[in-house]
Structure formats: C-alpha cells, structure tokens
C-alpha cells in the first residue's frame, strides 16, 4: 500500500448529512469483479442533477470532500471507497462517519477526518475559494487563514497509513498467537471449530 502522509488541495464543500453508500455508488455498479473504474458511477444520482457540486468547475478534481454527519452510512460495500478513489477523492472530512465506511476507507488509504460541526462549517466556507491542508503526522487540518483544527485518529491506523503497511501481512506475522488460540479452542469448544465439517 502507498504511504499516506496527508492531503493538500481543494475540497468539495458539500456538507450534506447521512450520505449513504447507495448515494456514493448505486447498487447496479456493484456487479463488477474488479476494483477499478467505479469513479464513473460515483455519486451518480447527485451528478445527474443540474448545478451539482461535482460538476462545478471550481471544485472539479478536488482530492478532499467535506460532508455532514454519518457519512458512508448504509451498506458495507467497499465499492464506495473504490469509487471515491477513482474519482480522485483521497480524504473526507465530516463530523462523523459510519464505522464500516471509515474502516473501508482506511484499508484503501483514504483519510477520514472527524471534526466538530462548527469546524466543518468553517472549512465548508473556506473551501469555496481556498485550499485545505490535512497533516496526518501532526493530526491537524489547516487553512491559509490561520485556522488550525487538531483531529483524533486511531494510532494503529495512523501508523499503517504513514508507513504504507498491509494489514493482512501484519496479521499473518501473528500466526503463532492465532494457532495457539485455535488449539485451545479445538479443545474447549470443538463444535465451534467444526464449521461446515460437522459430522451429520
């Protein structure tokens, strides 16, 4: 995975609340067996409307999206993260995210930055005209106007992002611990270990 240190650039000042995964990428786009090309379907219903934010040339190609509460609610489809990436969005700032979406975003190197509503409102204002800067190392969002908003991020996620670490690779290194757990489990709760191999 590529290292992620932050993101500087223009942002879509959207601010909409409860943006669900069906809005990010409608279900008919989920029939793909690849991760590529989903940008064409990203925000399809929004982009079908005249004057929508994604077609506004002031913002086109922005790497950052600013949204409202509960961004990414709804389905577990990782296609939502792939669609954002394909559209060129590498960071989302919002007052809150759905748990599944923020996990999916992280695994694809998309930064999800949680800030309180007032600060998000301020960024929505700044983004109309100016760039926004996210610094992962220092955990801050700054603007050219002296705004400096610190944000929280899970230390493990931060470490993985900054160093471009593959989570599966890291877990596979824990094989001894996993095998130990499985050995113990096979003795104490054998029925759980059987799965589809339960003898009829």
């Amino acid at each position, binding site marked *: 995975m590529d290292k992620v240190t932050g993101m500087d650039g223009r942002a879509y000042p959207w601010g909409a*609340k*409860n943006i*669900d995964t*069906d*809005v990010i990428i*409608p*279900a*008919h786009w*989920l*029939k*793909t*067996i*690849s*991760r590529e090309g989903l940008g064409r379907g990203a925000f399809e*219903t929004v982009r079908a409307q005249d004057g929508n934010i994604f077609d506004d040339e002031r913002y086109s190609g922005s790497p950052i999206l600013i949204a*409202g*509460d*509960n961004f990414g*609610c*709804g*389905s*577990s*489809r*990782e*296609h939502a*993260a792939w669609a954002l990436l394909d559209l060129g969005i590498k960071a989302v700032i919002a007052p*809150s995210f*759905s*748990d*599944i979406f923020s*996990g*999916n975003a992280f*695994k*694809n190197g998309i930064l999800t930055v949680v800030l309180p509503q007032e600060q998000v409102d301020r960024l929505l204002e700044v983004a109309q005209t100016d760039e926004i800067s996210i610094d992962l190392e220092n955990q801050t969002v700054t603007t050219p106007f002296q705004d400096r908003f610190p944000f929280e991020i*899970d*230390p*493990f996620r931060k470490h993985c992002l900054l160093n471009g670490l593959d*989570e*599966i690779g890291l*877990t*596979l290194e*824990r094989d001894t*611990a*996993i095998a*130990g*757990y*499985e050995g113990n*489990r096979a003795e104490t*709760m*054998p*029925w*759980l270990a*059987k*799965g*589809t*191999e*339960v*003898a*009829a």
Partner: protein
Amino acid sequence: MSHTPRTLYEKIWDAHVVETRDDGTSLIYIDRHLVHEVTSPQAFEALRMSGRKVRRPELTLAVPDHNLPTTARVDAAGNRLPIADPESAQQLAALERNAPEFGIHYIDATARQQGIVHVVGPEQGFSLPGATIVCGDSHTACHGGMGALAFGIGTSEVEHVLATQTLQLKRSKSMEVRVDGDLGPGVTAKDVILHIIGVIGAAGGTGYVIEYRGSVFENMSIEERLTVCNMSIEGGARAGLVAPDETTFAYLKGRPYAPNGADWDAAVAWWRSLATDPGAQFDRSVVIDAADIQPTVTWGTSPEDVVPIGGVVPAPESFADPSKRIAAQKSLDYMGLTPGMAMQDVPIENIFIGSCTNSRIEDLRAAAAILKGRKKAANVRWAIAVPGSGLVKEQAEAEGLDRIFIDAGFEWREPGCSACLAMNPDKVPAGERCASTSNRNFVGRQGPGARTHLVSPAMAAAAAVAGHLADVRDFTA
C-alpha cells in the same frame, strides 16, 4: 478471573481475543464467515495475486443471493437456465469458481438450501450463539438474533478473514435498548425496530453494539429477533444482540451445522453462561414502553423517518435540527409527499415482501393471513413475495401460502435479495411507490427514482389490498 459483571457483548468479545495491543486494538478470532457473490470477487482475486490461502475453509460458507434473478432457475427438464445479465452472470460464475478453488463449501444457485445469506446462516445452524460472525454485507447484524456477535465487513476485511480467520478490531461501546410490556395488536418485530430507529436516529448507534433486552424480545421467536437485529445497522450500530435462551436452543437443535451429541450439551452450557450479568454497565441505555409502539411506516429516505400508520407526513419545520429540516425537505421532494398528508392516503403501486429482514416463514404467514380470501387493489401494478430461502419456500408451499399469494395477485418467486436492492432484475420504476418489507428506504435503493415505504409483512399485505398505505388493524378486526 475477575468477577466484574459483564455484558453479553463483553463476554463474547473476551472469548474471542487472540491478543490485544497496547493501543487497545485486539486481534479477534472469527468463528463463522458468510460469503456471497457481490463483495467477494475482489477478495479472492487479491488472495490469488498474493499467493495467500484460506486459513480455515470450513469456517466459511458461500451462497449467491444479491444479483441472482428470482425467476425460475431451471427449465422443465431440470436444466439450469442462463442468467440474462452478463455482469451478474460473471459475478456468479466467479463465486462458483472461487469457492471450490479455495476449499469453501458452496451452496449452488439451484440448491434447496440456497437463499439470502442471512436467512441461510441461522437456518443451516451455521450461525451459532456466542460466535463471532461476519459477512461482506452490513445486515450481518441480523445473526445477533441468535445471540451471536455478528457484523458487516468490507471486501478488504473479507480478504483478511479468509487469510487469517481474524480481524483487527477495537471494542465498541455498549448500548442497552430495553422494551418491556405488551405489544398492541398488529404490532410486529418490524414495527418495534422501526420505532427504535426513530427514537435513537440513523446515526444514534454509531460506535455501539446494541443489546436488545426486556420482555418484548424475550417473548419473540428467533425469526422476530432476526428481524430486529437485522436493522441494528439502520440505527448506526454495527451489531445488535439478543441473549440466547431456550427459544434459541430449540430453534437450533438438529439443524445441519449445529453441534450434536456431547458437543450439543457442552455448547448449550456455554450459551447459557453468556447472558449479561446483573449489575453490568452499559455505556448508554434507551428504555421504550411497548405500549407506545404502533404499526409503523417510513415517510422519507432515511430509516429514522418513521411515523405511526395513523400519523401524517411531518412538516420539515417541525424538526429542531436545521440540517434535519433540510434533509426532510429533500426527502419529501424525492418521495413526492406534502406535509400534513395522512400516511393512509399515500397510494401504493408496488409491494415487495421479502429481504433478509422479513422473508422467513413467519413473515410469509403474517402476510398471507391478511391476504387470504382478498385480492390486491387494481392500482397495485406489481406485487411480489420472495421467500428468503429454498427451504422457506418449500415450507410455505407445504402450508399452501403460495396459493394465497398467487390468488391475491402476487408473483411467487425464487429466493434471493430481489427488490431489496436494485441489483437484479426486480426493481421499482422511477417515481412509483413501494410498500416494502426490506430495510432501506434510501434514494434509489429499489431502483433509480423509486420511492420506498418500509413496513412489516402484514402492513405490506394490507397496503396491497387497500391500494394505499393502510392500518393492518383494520383488516384483522
């Protein structure tokens, strides 16, 4: 061992910790993994590319459901019919190839056991109390009805589970939703969960695992508990649980993958020990009086947009939160509704009875009880009943329910996700309304421009007969 009282969630969590890092992240062992055709192809592909194997293939079960058409799958001679949509066909072919290649048990599209993953898991006894269960689908929360810690995961996590049988997780906060008392006539498990989501909001459960407690849930069947837990995610919670009890054990006994013999006794003993200890602390408690719950419908495009069937379409100004006011106006524009309109005056052209929320045998019985001897209204253009699995379908047919649906003007379909999401041929046309027993009323969920009203199976049947949203209590006298 410490004697601090623990919740059901904490007990299941503690029993699955492989190790915990200093930052509080734990490696959690996953007991059961369900796989379907939509969120798995990229995971298998990534495994193949990195040369990784599936660690414990017997702990994963694969079955197609999401984009499988619900029309006949074999011809009169028993030959498999091709799937018209080339992309759907390709996705199904990928699962059919991937499962055997990685040694995973696969239930074929034409098998009697095929169905929606969340119906199949419990029905096969694959989903067990106290187990950690995951699937690349957010409604995995459903299996919490079995007393399992079950939650949806993304495709990278599907790959992580396949390769390691674990996930890296942080413990969630815990929320107790307590509903005591007696449910009124016509009030079902679906109404209970819609009401709860109305109370806590679509993001109210974010960061929490919910335990549903109180006499209302204790008195529910497994089918009803699955309905409740299924929609936990619509309240923002990744998982919802009901403590396993005698009802759970009776449901599971003898199912194909359930423990048997000495295993069964040992399992039941452990399951009994899982209930939340007296005095255990929840991070948040929500208490609801069963008597306050009415047969419920949604008016907007978020599952929190609920109102009792006797109510009216709310005015955006009635919401205190300014962003909710804007969202409500947008919802009303999309739904084509005006404030003050009685919900019972909302005409309905489409009826969908199905989805992992409401496609089990009790759901079909509840709808059929209303439809018996009645017909769908003339303005109801399309009404379909889609059993959650082949076994549910067989059972329903043995009870003659299929005849009741067909006589009422419904189509009786093969199992699958169907019109719950617009991925397969079952879609609601733009601008038309659907009284739907599914779980999401999002913009475009049932097809571009489709307008969804979430209801219980009995209420969907009542709407079919009336031709508009209707109060099921007027049909049961």
